[in-house]
């Protein structure tokens, strides 16, 4: 299945300036892996050493945070959209 992945402004620089990337994948995980393979710098920045996504990077499938979806709900369907949106945080150490 082909799906559109929308990137937020600051991450576009790590994906050759692209706002929307079309990728293949049957599940959210597959699509994200393909995204990381295609854009190594992006993957390196938002992925962790343990193969997970940084806690401040959020992935939404049709507006729903994938962290709260069951596995069967992470299967990509026709015209589905994935959106990556960061959480902004900072302050004293």
């Amino acid at each position: 299945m082909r799906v559109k992945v929308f990137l937020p402004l600051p991450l576009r620089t790590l994906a050759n300036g692209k706002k929307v990337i079309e990728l293949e994948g049957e599940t959210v995980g597959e699509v994200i892996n393909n995204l990381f393979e295609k854009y190594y710098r992006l993957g390196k920045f938002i992925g962790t050493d343990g193969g997970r996504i940084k806690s401040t990077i959020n992935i939404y499938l049709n507006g729903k945070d994938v962290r709260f979806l069951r596995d069967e709900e992470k299967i990509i369907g026709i015209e589905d959209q994935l959106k990556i949106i960061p959480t902004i945080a900072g302050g004293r150490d």
Partner: protein
Amino acid sequence: MIKVNSTLLNSLAEHFHSKENEIVCGAILGFNSGSDLILDSVINLENENYELRNSRYLISPAQYESAENSAAEKGLNLLGFYHSSGIIEPGEYDKKHALPEFVYLLFNCSGRHKVNFTLWKFNSDKDFFEFLDAEVFNEVFYNQAAVAV
């Protein structure tokens, strides 16, 4: 060169004094003039770190998306984020959460109106914050000068 509208600094001071004992935060809007990056205005956002509001800030994805959309509606770009801080230099916690490309403005206030601030950009390849030089300009002055001419 980065140019900061003085009215933006006034907005920061107002936000700072509206919540004296909390970290205040928000989005920075502006545009690239070709030669300069203009920091034009801000959108005050809610600090959603409800447990450590006096030392840290958090802006949810919903607020982030709203800021990006508001900027587009105004014909501006979302250029980065600001937050108040006793020390106006980013620390490890800031670095851990920083995103590339964005401008980060750290500030505090001396008295009612004086805003002390620094600007930074995160270099994700080298994993450190670069200090950015900035110049403050006065939009009102420019407008008045234009009228006088």
